């Protein structure tokens, strides 16, 4: 799964930083039919978490009403240098992750 992350490389302590995250995923609702009328089974990402040096700073539960290739913009306060970890988990427990190093001065 291709993942795109937008986050600053550096920030000043206390800055509110914008984070964007997108992952390639069909978010198949389970309500669609294929070209021969067969039901296409549900296949969705159900959970997203962003951890800042291990602590969850933002999370989301997704339902089938979230568009394909889920996209999020959210914010966090720059507190210390370290790692922003982004993780998506699907309905079957499979997960994909990406991380971003940030320097806070």
């Amino acid at each position, binding site marked *: 799964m291709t993942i795109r992350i937008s986050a600053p490389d550096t920030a000043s302590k206390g800055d509110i930083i914008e984070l964007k995250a997108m992952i390639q995923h069909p978010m198949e609702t389970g309500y669609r039919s294929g070209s*021969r009328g067969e039901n296409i089974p549900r296949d969705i990402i159900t959970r997203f978490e962003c951890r800042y040096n291990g602590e969850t*700073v933002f999370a989301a539960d997704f339902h089938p009403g979230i568009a394909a290739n889920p996209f999020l913009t959210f914010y*966090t306060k720059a507190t210390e240098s370290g790692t922003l970890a982004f993780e998506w988990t699907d309905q079957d427990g499979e997960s994909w992750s990406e991380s971003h190093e940030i320097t806070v001065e």
Partner: protein
Amino acid sequence: MAENSFTLTRRLMLTGLGAGVLSSALPFSALGEPEDADKAIRDLFGDGEIREGKVTVKLPPIAENGNSVAITVSVDSPMSEADHVRRIGLFSPRNPIPELAVFELGPRAGKAEVSTRIRMAGTQRIRAVAEMSDGSLWMGSASTVVTLAACVIG
């Protein structure tokens, strides 16, 4: 002649180019009712009073396809340790499943604003409910007219 087989299904006839005003490829029975959204909100946030205000939902006035509509929800909150947003739920009164997403925030968010892209099974008013750190519930909403493209074959 083309080699692949292509079946002209009834639904394809109904939803396709120039076929009229049928607005969704979903069977009607699958569409939700506003009451379903009310129930979903109660299931998630309990029976407390929900007040209008503090929550702003931004949607485009018209979406040219309901498969992906950009939405931004923001909540008027200092986002401090003592006073912050805990959760924000997005709900649709018309989609087959009323819950769209639930966001978990906290004082470390710094700013209570989230953007994503949602599916909208037709024109409707999307509701956002925010649960604050003191347990109070606030709601805002916005509506979008979902137009249907002419050249759909699904």
